[in-house]
């Protein structure tokens, strides 16, 4: 028998669970919070980088595949992989 009074929210939840069956058991729990707390984390460890460089000696350090734009922690990044953050030297367009 069809449940005619399913709330729109529960219908949306069913849709989501259908697309992502392995979505966390805890609704809106620690996963989100931990992701929020880890904002800004970059994976450049100068120690790892230098040790890997020393091990490889003269060989080239394996860099990320060209398509990868983000450093995700599954390879040892080089300084070139990290996005260069420079302060804005341009005046805001609101003041233009």
């Amino acid at each position, binding site marked *: 028998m069809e449940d005619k009074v399913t*709330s*729109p*929210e*529960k*219908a*949306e*939840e069913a*849709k*989501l*669970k259908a*697309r992502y069956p392995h*979505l966390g058991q805890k*609704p*809106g*729990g*620690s996963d*989100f*919070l*931990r992701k*929020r*707390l880890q*904002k*800004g*984390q*970059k*994976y*450049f*460890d*100068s120690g790892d980088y230098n040790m890997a460089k020393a091990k490889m000696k003269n060989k080239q350090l394996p860099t990320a595949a060209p398509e990868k734009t983000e450093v995700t922690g599954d390879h040892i990044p080089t300084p070139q992989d990290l996005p260069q*953050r*420079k*302060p*804005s030297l*341009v*005046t*805001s*367009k*609101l*003041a*233009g």
Partner: protein
Amino acid sequence: MAGAGGGGCPAGSNDFQWCFSQVKGAVDEDVAEADIISTVEFNYSGDLLATGDKGGRVVIFQREQESKSRPHSRGEYNVYSTFQSHEPEFDYLKSLEIEEKINKIRWLPQQNAAHFLLSTNDKTIKLWKISERDKRAEGYNLKDEDGRLRDPFRITALRVPILKPMDLMVEASPRRIFANAHTYHINSISVNSDHETYLSADDLRINLWHLEITDRSFNIVDIKPANMEELTEVITAAEFHPHQCNVFVYSSSKGTIRLCDMRSSALCDRHSKFFEEPEDPSSRSFFSEIISSISDVKFSHSGRYMMTRDYLSVKVWDLNMESRPVETHQVHEYLRSKLCSLYENDCIFDKFECCWNGSDSAIMTGSYNNFFRMFDRNTRRDVTLEASRENSKPRASLKPRKVCTGGKRKKDEISVDSLDFNKKILHTAWHPMENIIAVAATNNLYIFQDKIN
């Protein structure tokens, strides 16, 4: 609040008729990330309007004095000062990139000719002094004509420099830097009514500062669990009470608000009041907690009420009643049947702010498609307006907008599926005394005024 023929209505009437006044910012289709406005705030008199952006820059606008020679520029806001407040940093020890984005700006009440504001990014709060210089001292006899300093022994006459007028120069200088007190990301700052202290809140802690002291800060709330695996909620916003300097509130990602009294103990981990609306357990879904997360909390000017913004609604609470809000206003209820896609595109995590008008009779908050909503608490009327360049003729009235949810779309209505979720209005501000509002639409700042003003 689109009053039909509002001529002759007394000032302070409940029927607003909002008109376009100004728009600031570039018209380009391609918006540079740094230009995205991240905070908007009027000062206490409403004469100054500050904006902060993702690029760490602050732009301050000043309201022009009304003059007979330019009657149409009555109360226009023009650029007063602009400066780079924060710069990107990299914490090498923690491998953490610190964004320069200005999360919040809060003005200090004016005490002398200079203006002071606090601006903060994720980690550091800065106190800026904005001062005017319109005089220059001239007539020094300490230098030669070519600018070289003269030998002091050769100066035989004592000449007192004369102050001469010069073109107005507005200077911004950082007077205090409050750093290294937050492990997590700062979401709020709030100046106390004692005008001496302020609080800063991050995801797990709230600190109390004295405006004069930068090397010390008191921790007043700490909700970090001993075991991070047990983390269930974070602090989302915090604010001091407008009149009681010992009282502040903080909201959480679980939709609760705690009111704390600093007189009761040094560490306010235990609240004095706990505000939570009871939830119907049968209606609970995966999304319930996420959409109940409070993105903003604001006391009314009177100090008797507070307002909270969660994903779909704005709630007004009476400080004397913890069990449930006294008013609930739906912002965009039609999104409830779109939560799946809004979760997938992360929009469900968007943090909308809200604000009161000067008399606490109306509240405003933003939505998607560059729409923003206003609720009149007395007449119970609400309206949806749009910030758009298409409707930017001087003093053009804003036409109310309507989103259609059903099948049949009327003319001038827009269907939910046509809404542009990239055009979010997260930050709005209302002049403390007059009916002038500032609305940040991505990289543009719109200023609207009430016709009857």
